[in-house]
């Protein structure tokens, strides 16, 4: 109770007394699909998104308070409506340690195509399908700094269900998700307190991190109950490794996990490189080439089991911050693919326009198809954002 009082006192003083850093953005996002949805969903949908971020340093920088809400309204699928705190946290900074408490979002990731190790936060799959839209997670995170790196302990009280598209939403599996019910392995259901540990180090050009998570899986399995896909969240143990090596223009990356709780223990990994050729033209453009391989020993039970990711990223480094990205991730056995093209540039100092296109496709032979329900889900999305 005392903690809550002092936290709210801090938040209040932060909000009303201290001048901190504030940023805010409003986005209008429109998605246009090539085809109507297989279950009769509309060919287009529009979202309005608001994100706020407030950060302030208190007590000469020994406390940091961050308040970061996010809200979304969608015109077709009420399951995409959202209000969430990406962060509502207070960090106490000591000599050689930090204690971060409250709701936070944290990313454990080195590869670009896979999000294997990243596990603390639940995903919001009603945003983008790239696994980068997350929900804030209540946590207590103690960081101990050492000369060689840091050790972090996490207590994660409370579980948040994955946000899944509704019957009118896209992209989704052929059967609708049961967004009202969820089953848990843990008797505590969504009230279990999970735990995690992360040890990370930096040795010159080498960086590594070892992570251990024990708790309710953020990723659900699905059971068909009354004609709907009902999420089931097992209790898992997951060990993760992230490895990165920087050599000149090359960044070599690897991440892998071993997870128990989804049937037999399984292993998945992704690795590759990012090569940046800087100043490719007299006008100072940067060109990045990314190549990664994804592996999963469950084989064809899972889509990203033997896949290659290739992408080109072109940054113009111009006044408008223009960026282009083209990439494909493709199954090495069947040729099933997801291709993306992304463009983004700034207008003036407060607007940004982004346009993304996604194409899905695969082999004709039904037995080779892993994600056939995506093949008619090609779409273009255009997003206009105003920053304040």
């Amino acid at each position, binding site marked *: 109770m005392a903690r809550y009082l002092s936290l709210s006192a801090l938040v209040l003083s932060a909000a009303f007394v201290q001048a901190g850093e504030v*940023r805010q953005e409003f986005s209008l996002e429109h998605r246009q699909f090539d085809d109507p949805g297989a279950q009769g969903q509309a060919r287009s949908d529009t979202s309005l998104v608001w994100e706020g971020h407030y950060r302030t340093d208190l007590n000469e920088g020994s406390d940091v308070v961050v308040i970061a809400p996010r809200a979304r309204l969608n015109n077709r699928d009420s399951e995409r409506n959202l209000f969430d705190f990406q962060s509502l946290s207070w960090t106490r900074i000591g000599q050689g340690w930090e204690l971060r408490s409250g709701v936070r979002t944290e990313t454990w990731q080195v590869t670009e195509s896979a999000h294997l190790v990243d596990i603390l936060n639940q995903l919001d799959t009603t945003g983008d399908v790239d696994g980068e839209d997350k929900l804030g997670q209540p946590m207590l995170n103690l960081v101990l700094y050492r000369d060689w790196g840091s050790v972090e302990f996490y207590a994660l009280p409370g579980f948040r269900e994955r946000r899944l598209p509704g019957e009118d939403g896209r992209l989704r599996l052929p059967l609708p998700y049961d967004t009202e019910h969820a089953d848990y392995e843990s008797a505590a259901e969504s009230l279990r307190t999970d735990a995690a540990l992360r040890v990370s180090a930096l040795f010159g050009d080498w960086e590594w991190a070892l992570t251990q998570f024990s708790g309710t899986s953020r990723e659900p399995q699905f059971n068909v109950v009354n004609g709907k896909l009902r999420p089931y969240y097992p209790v898992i143990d997951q060990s993760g490794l992230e490895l990165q090596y920087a050599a*000149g223009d090359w960044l070599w990356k690897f991440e892998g996990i071993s997870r128990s709780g989804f049937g037999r223990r399984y292993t998945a990994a992704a690795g590759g490189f990012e090569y940046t050729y800087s100043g490719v033209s007299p006008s100072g453009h940067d060109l990045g080439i990314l190549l990664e391989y994804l592996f999963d020993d469950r084989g064809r039970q899972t889509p990203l089991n033997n896949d290659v990711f290739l992408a080109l990223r072109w940054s113009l*480094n111009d006044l408008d911050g223009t960026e282009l990205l083209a990439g494909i991730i493709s199954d090495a056995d069947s040729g099933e693919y997801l291709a993306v093209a992304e463009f983004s540039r700034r207008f003036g100092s407060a607007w940004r326009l982004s346009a993304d296109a996604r194409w899905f496709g695969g082999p004709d032979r039904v037995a080779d198809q892993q994600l056939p329900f995506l093949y008619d889900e090609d779409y273009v999305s255009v997003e206009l954002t105003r920053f*304040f």
Partner: protein
Amino acid sequence: MKRFKRGVQRVGLALLVLTTSAILQADEVNKAYQIMAESERRDEGWQDNRSEMQMIIRRGDGREIVRELRTQALEGDSGEDKSLMVFDEPLDVRGTVFLTHSYPLEADDQWIYLPSQNRVKRISSKRRNGRFMGSEFTFEDLAAFALEEYDYTYLRQEACGEHSCHVIEMRPKDKYSGYEKFVYFMDVDELRVWRVEFYDKRTGKHSKTMTMSDYTRYLDRYWRASRAVMKNLLNGAETEIRWRKEEFRVGLNEQDFRKTALERRQ
């Protein structure tokens, strides 16, 4: 930040009064090296630094754009400085942070914190010819200065503005550098850099000139310019940098420059 500052501070090579007598007998190479070494030596001991930076980009066609950043830097042993650069403008990159751990003669370690993804990403720092935020500065121009990274030749002494200046040629040893050489103009009295001429590696031609001015002395010792103008001689564009609220010894420590510490920014 110091990194930026010294690069431009290669420009700012903040300096002390130098007794030139010791170096007068040296040959041209030695003389140039010793001037630079002395300026380096005299810049030691600043500990940490914080400032605000405004970048005004003026294109050949008259368009003008402003960038706002805040910088923090920590002095390390033997040139292993650390720095943070936080973006305030343009608004779509507000909150983005560049963290750099500099090493003389080695590639720096560099990370970028992307607030939109809550993610700290390592970036490759070896090749640094890319333009910085659409300005006339490249990442290399903004990098920390390290004495051992160049070969020096003393060219001449000549008048520059109201001062008399050493004119020193510097050739980068790093094969990834975008420049064939630089020519520095540093005043004889205080070793402040007033002008730098940049010679492009591809063409060998004089492509850019940077002019530094409005020097202030901090802690009775460290000279810092509060204005730098980089002019592109090929297209007529120029970028001006103004530093404000320069502060030294504000109590920054090693922990503030850890990669893990970037996460508390979210």
